[in-house]
């Protein structure tokens, strides 16, 4: 049981890294980025590609994924710019198209065999926790995720840039009226959000592997996290991710018969009780 809770944290922090970018972009610009899962998968394949080279390979993959994520976010931001006055559906369709193209390109480049990604040396073993055996890499993932969550929280909550981001989420027109080019804010958040997605892909590789179809599985998890946590909220993404992590692992242990839909049951409960998400502000339009 304790191992399941621990594992829920590992999955939860991974989901947080993935979902926080999606949440901020959606909350701020109403852009539903369906290519987010494809970015994650790109990161996972990078991790698989360099996994044989030990720590150097792992850190190298993280670096390349970060740069590629920044660039991809910038491109996506440019692509969605002409559609900013149009409906959610148009933007969703555009990013869905990008997602399909990227997924196909990944298959062309990396093949369609599922790949396993070993953890970096020293972390590929298991350690004893609570009298059970647990993969060492996942423990490190928990620590890393917690640190990253703290950093993102501090940046968004305590810095000028963060204040600008929060202000843009709250009222984009007002920020523009103050003389800030909110296209730049959007591009910046898009780029950092995509960076987090590709980074999560490299970090998640040793847990999920890399295979065609993983992008959509991951995208759905991220969407569930965002909806539960509330749009545009870092704290919401963190709490949502940790809840989903626990529901997904603990739920399967305690209620194995309901395993296949327990995630969506949690989503439904939140939607009924608090449609704006746990930490979202009610949308008044």
């Amino acid at each position, binding site marked *: *049981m304790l*191992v*399941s809770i621990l*594992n829920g944290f590992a*999955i939860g922090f991974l989901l947080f890294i993935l979902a926080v970018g999606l949440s901020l972009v959606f909350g701020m610009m109403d852009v539903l980025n369906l290519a987010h899962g494809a970015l994650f998968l790109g990161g996972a394949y990078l991790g698989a590609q360099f996994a044989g080279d030990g720590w150097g390979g792992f850190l190298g993959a993280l670096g390349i994924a970060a740069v590629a994520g920044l660039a991809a976010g910038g491109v996506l931001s440019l692509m969605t710019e002409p559609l900013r006055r149009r409906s959610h559906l148009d933007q969703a369709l555009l990013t869905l198209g990008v997602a399909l193209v990227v997924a196909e390109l990944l298959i062309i480049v990396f093949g*369609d*065999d*599922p*790949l*396993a990604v*070993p953890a970096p040396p020293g972390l590929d073993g*298991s350690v004893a926790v609570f009298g*059970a*055996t*647990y*993969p060492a890499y996942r423990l490190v993932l928990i620590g890393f995720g917690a640190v990253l969550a703290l950093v993102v929280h501090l940046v968004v909550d305590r810095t000028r840039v963060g204040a600008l981001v929060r202000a843009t989420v709250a009222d984009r027109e007002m920020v523009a009226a103050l003389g800030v080019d909110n296209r730049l804010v959007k591009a910046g958040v898009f780029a950092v959000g995509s960076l987090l997605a590709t980074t999560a892909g490299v970090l998640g590789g040793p*847990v*999920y*592997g890399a*295979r*065609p*179809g*993983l992008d959509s*599985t991951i995208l759905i998890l991220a969407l569930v996290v965002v909806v539960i946590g509330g749009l545009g909220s870092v704290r919401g993404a963190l709490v949502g991710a940790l809840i989903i992590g626990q529901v*997904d*692992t*603990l*739920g*399967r*242990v305690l209620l*194995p018969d309901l*395993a*296949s839909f327990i995630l969506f049951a949690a989503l439904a409960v939140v939607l009924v009780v608090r449609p704006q998400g746990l930490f979202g502000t009610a949308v008044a339009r």
Partner: protein
Amino acid sequence: MTEHPTITRRRLLALFGAVPVLAACGSSVGGGSGGTSGGAKAIKVGLVVPQSGVYAALGTDMQRGWDLWLEQNGGKFGDYTVTTVVADEGETPQTGVPAVQKVLQSDGVDVVVGIVNSATALGVADTLKESKKLLIVTNAGAGALTGKARTPYIWRTSFTNAQVSAAMGAHLAQSGFKDGVFAIAPDYAAGAEVIAGFTKAFEAGGGKVVGTAKPAFGKTSDYQPFLTQIQQSGAKATFCFFSGSEAITFVKQYQQFGLAGTIPLYGSGFLTEGSVLKQQADAALGVQTTLHYTDQLDNPANKAFVAAYQAKYQASPSTFSVQTADAANVLNRALKTATALDGDALAAALGGVGAVDDSPRGSWTFDGQTPRQTMYLRKVENVNGTLVNAVVQDLGQQSQPR
């Protein structure tokens, strides 16, 4: 509105035009292939295997097996020169059924060979019945294909899901695990057949299944909750069935969460067959499975087959290659006595081929329309730096469980 009648007329014209043309094609092909006596005889085969999607790797192995057999036999079944038309089965019946219809209707093939997905094989039964053409299934393992939903036009050179797992059920009941085995397989048709076949044979041998789990198929990436369930069940061994990426993840996590050292892992052979074994790496060491083939089999036919396959493709054959090569083998045997190339004549001839004694998997026979074949207990071992499924024990000839 004004255009509507024109289109209808055109369609009608096209229809009337096309039908006699197609019929003419059909009869000319039929006449050219079966009828001519003494002269050059020809048979056209539609090889329908996945070339895209998650099963693409299986499709590659299958086509290689087929091509290799033909190459070694001069591209001929006896007097018949073989023409192969390849079509992409894809992943699901939505792509597989049209692929079979295409080779039957527009390519006018005499026989269809291949099919990975059981739902696709079941989905083309009516088409085959109408066109009276034969299908030799070289993978799809649903029991119903040659059981409840049997038609005379579908034969199989592969296996049934329950046949493979029943062999393991009987073996585990005899090898000291009677007190408790945990059974786990994905929540879909094949998974259910595997578990049912295993449970029936295991319980018939006096064994007790202490728990079962059915992770969502294609949606489970983290097996920790199920691994905890297995540990808590007090099982002495685990029996599982996974393939593709799920096989990789499950075997790796089984080791990472420390179960490999305490609760030995057994499975249906597809758990460690083909390209997944390399990805599972050392986590797969010691895993034991049952299957009707491994490239490690020590018989002359297999040694020759493996050597030729490695020389041609720089890779080891898998059970999928052998199953498809055997389809060519049985067609070759059947055509010695077949009076025509239609489904009825070929089915009658297949019924009389007797023992296929030169198959790499060892000698097997048709029982009903699916193989009665030797099942092998295999164990993943490291031989000179390469992981292989070494033969541990010959579990004897077994038929499709009824």
